[in-house]
């Protein structure tokens, strides 16, 4: 049996398809993620919004607003701090409109002859977050003026006092009411790590092609090799066991290789619990073998169809795990919140979930339940494969 395992492994690793899709592809994708997002984490919260201003008399007259915006554009206190705004001056409204339309600035501010502020946005990107941030800053300033006016009406005597007016203005633009960011996770979350974990989910499904090929090679009437092997001396059960052990070992190696690459090269820390990753990978590899056996056992399907089935399963199951970019992550979130059962039965999602809970959650219970779900899926698929294989053997005999 050891010889069988050894040759099964050698045979599999000679197939270029397996080497590319099960071993090289996750590493290539990880490298792409790594280089593509290298600059991303740093510019998330601290980026500068490009605001155009029409520098006409209206702008010169709006002293309060101008001071506020200039302070935001050229912060005096911290030199290394990234300013929130970058101001670009335009001579008139037409020039500002051209600048906005060409994308030179995110939005532009015009103060008309009546002293009313207008923000100009381009039709092609109306409603961006950066525009909303500028809008919020301006709104807050205008609301401050409005509030001061309302208070003056309310209590004219007190508002006549210059000192009280100054105190109000100072409070309105002050920073006394602040927010503090909570850190609820073991380490800061990042979109990036979810892509890496989704890659492991992908591997888990894609690698089932290994088990499928190896098992088919032991089954009578499934492949010519299978028929030949079945007349050999080794019992069918031991052949099947050898195929399963060999494919489990290969899948496990593929996944651990990916984990090692993520950990060492991509700098994914797994929340300092990298020693627990083999548990999840082992469970994933089991699912992989069971899925391969199941697809291989489907009665009346040809090899090409089985290949296509596995490819489709890989793409379809990896999507809810969030492999294909941010929109896929949104689909994944929607499913987790509205159709938890579909996510529970999806091995790619559970593989991602296991790594995610390992990294971010304090308690290991979610990790254990994800691994449990993986084992249950493996058991289900394995049982299905067994039923089909028995029936088919009965028919063939």
């Amino acid at each position, binding site marked *: 049996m050891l010889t069988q395992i050894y040759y099964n492994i050698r045979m599999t690793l000679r197939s270029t398809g397996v080497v590319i899709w099960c071993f090289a592809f996750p590493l290539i994708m990880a490298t792409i993620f790594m280089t593509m997002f290298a600059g991303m984490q740093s510019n998330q919260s601290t980026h500068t919004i490009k605001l155009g201003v029409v520098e006409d008399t209206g702008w010169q007259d709006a002293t309060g607003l101008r001071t506020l915006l200039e302070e935001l554009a050229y912060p005096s206190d911290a030199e290394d701090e990234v300013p929130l705004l970058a101001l670009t001056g335009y001579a008139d409204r037409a020039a500002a409109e051209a600048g906005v*339309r060409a994308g030179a600035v995110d939005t532009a501010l015009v103060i008309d002859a009546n002293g009313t502020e207008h923000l100009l946005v381009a039709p092609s990107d109306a409603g961006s977050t950066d525009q909303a941030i500028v809008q919020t800053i301006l709104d*807050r300033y205008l609301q401050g003026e409005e509030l001061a006016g309302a208070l003056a009406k309310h209590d004219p005597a007190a508002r006549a006092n210059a000192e009280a007016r100054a105190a109000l203005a100072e409070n309105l633009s002050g920073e006394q009411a*602040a927010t503090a960011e909570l850190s609820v996770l073991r380490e800061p979350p990042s979109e990036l790590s979810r892509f890496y974990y989704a890659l492991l989910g992908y591997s888990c499904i894609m690698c089932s092609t290994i088990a499928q090929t190896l098992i088919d090679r032991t089954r009578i009437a499934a492949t010519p090799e299978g028929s030949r092997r079945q007349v050999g001396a080794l019992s069918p059960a031991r052949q099947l066991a050898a195929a399963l052990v060999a494919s489990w070992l290969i899948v496990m190696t593929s996944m651990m290789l990916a984990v090692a690459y993520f950990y060492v090269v991509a700098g994914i820390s797994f929340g300092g619990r990298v020693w627990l990753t083999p548990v999840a990978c082992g469970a994933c590899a089991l699912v992989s073998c069971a899925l391969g056996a199941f697809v291989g056992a489907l009665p009346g399907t040809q090899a090409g169809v089985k290949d296509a089935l596995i490819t489709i399963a890989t793409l379809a199951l990896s999507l809810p795990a969030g492999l294909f970019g941010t929109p896929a992550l949104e689909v994944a979130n929607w499913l987790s919140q509205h159709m938890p059962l579909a996510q529970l039965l999806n091995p790619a999602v559970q593989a991602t979930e296991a790594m995610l809970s390992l990294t971010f959650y304090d308690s290991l219970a979610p990790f254990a339940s994800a691994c449990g779900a993986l084992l249950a899926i493996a058991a289900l698929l394995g049982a299905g494969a067994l039923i089909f294989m028995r029936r088919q053997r009965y028919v063939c005999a």
Partner: protein
Amino acid sequence: MSVLKIAVRLVAEHRVLFAVYVLLFSVVGSFAAGSLGPVSTTYEAVRPGVAIIDRDESAVSRALASHIAAVSELVEIEDSTRALQEAAAKNYADYVLVIPAGYGEELVAAARAGLDAPDLECVVSYTSANGSLMDERVRGYAQELYAIAAASPAAHAEDLVKLVDASQDTGVAVEIIDTETPGLPVTYLVYCQFALYALFGGVAAIVGIGLADLRTPEVRQRIGATPVPSAAFDTQIAGAIALCGIAVWSINAVVGIALYADELACVPVALTALMLVILFALMLVGMAFGFLIWQLGVRRELVHAIANISAIIISFLAGTWVPLANMSAEVLAVARFAPGLWAVSAMEMLVRATSVTGELVTSVLGHAGIVVLFALAIAAAGLAVGRARRAIA
């Protein structure tokens, strides 16, 4: 013409590849575009996903919560560590606001004593600037309450809230710049960006797989023995490859125009035509790459791998999946040496344009020209490989 006919028949036998690479990827592109939602003609500020956990339940906290709810999409999150952790790790909301117990009273008291108000707690998402936007809105509202509380020492919390809420309608007017004609819809831009995959990887895979049979030694030997000069053979193969490319380009273009017919109808035809020119240039790169793969004599099962992986890399480097603005300078420098960046930047120019000017046409055609140069370079490499292989043979 016999070789051309055979080549076309061989490709036609693999028509399922057209369905998978061209139709499927075109549909994926339209789904990605659909996630953007319809383009509106009026400005609406973004409404980030926000979850509010109110542990205070005072007049102030309720007012803050309803103010935030009015400018965002509310997401339900339970008040437990596990739920908060899950929400943060999976980014269920851009911003989670936790109002601590006793916040309302303490804010008013602090304002009247001239002290700093207690902190509101928040969990800010890792994606986009939406989290920072919500933080700005929350702090803005709380600060207004603080200032008003300090200025009216005797007023009840309810009255303070009323005053502040009354001022919330005041704000800057946001105007969408008027244009005589609308530009290309952004949804169509996303569709075209995704078309890059089909036009590059799809064409390469179809050419690589479809014509693989013409490279088997037996077929080569027989063709070598026929009275077809090798130049004529090469030309006919080039013709077959060109037909594949044009077929893929036309399918993609027709699907795109059919999907966005309504929006495109009111856009100057020249803009759509220029977009199709860019896509055509991209298709030429795919064709050249397919030719290179074919010349290299790559094995059939490897063609898929090579076409897909290179299409993924090219799409990434073009900023199709992650905006180029989010990439580091080093990656941008590398992206300049890939065709996708030039094509996508020309597409963006087109979407920003609202009328066809000579300047626009020259710069778009200039970018498309650079893309064509990439195609020429790859095709030249293919020719060189073919020559080298023939010399060895």
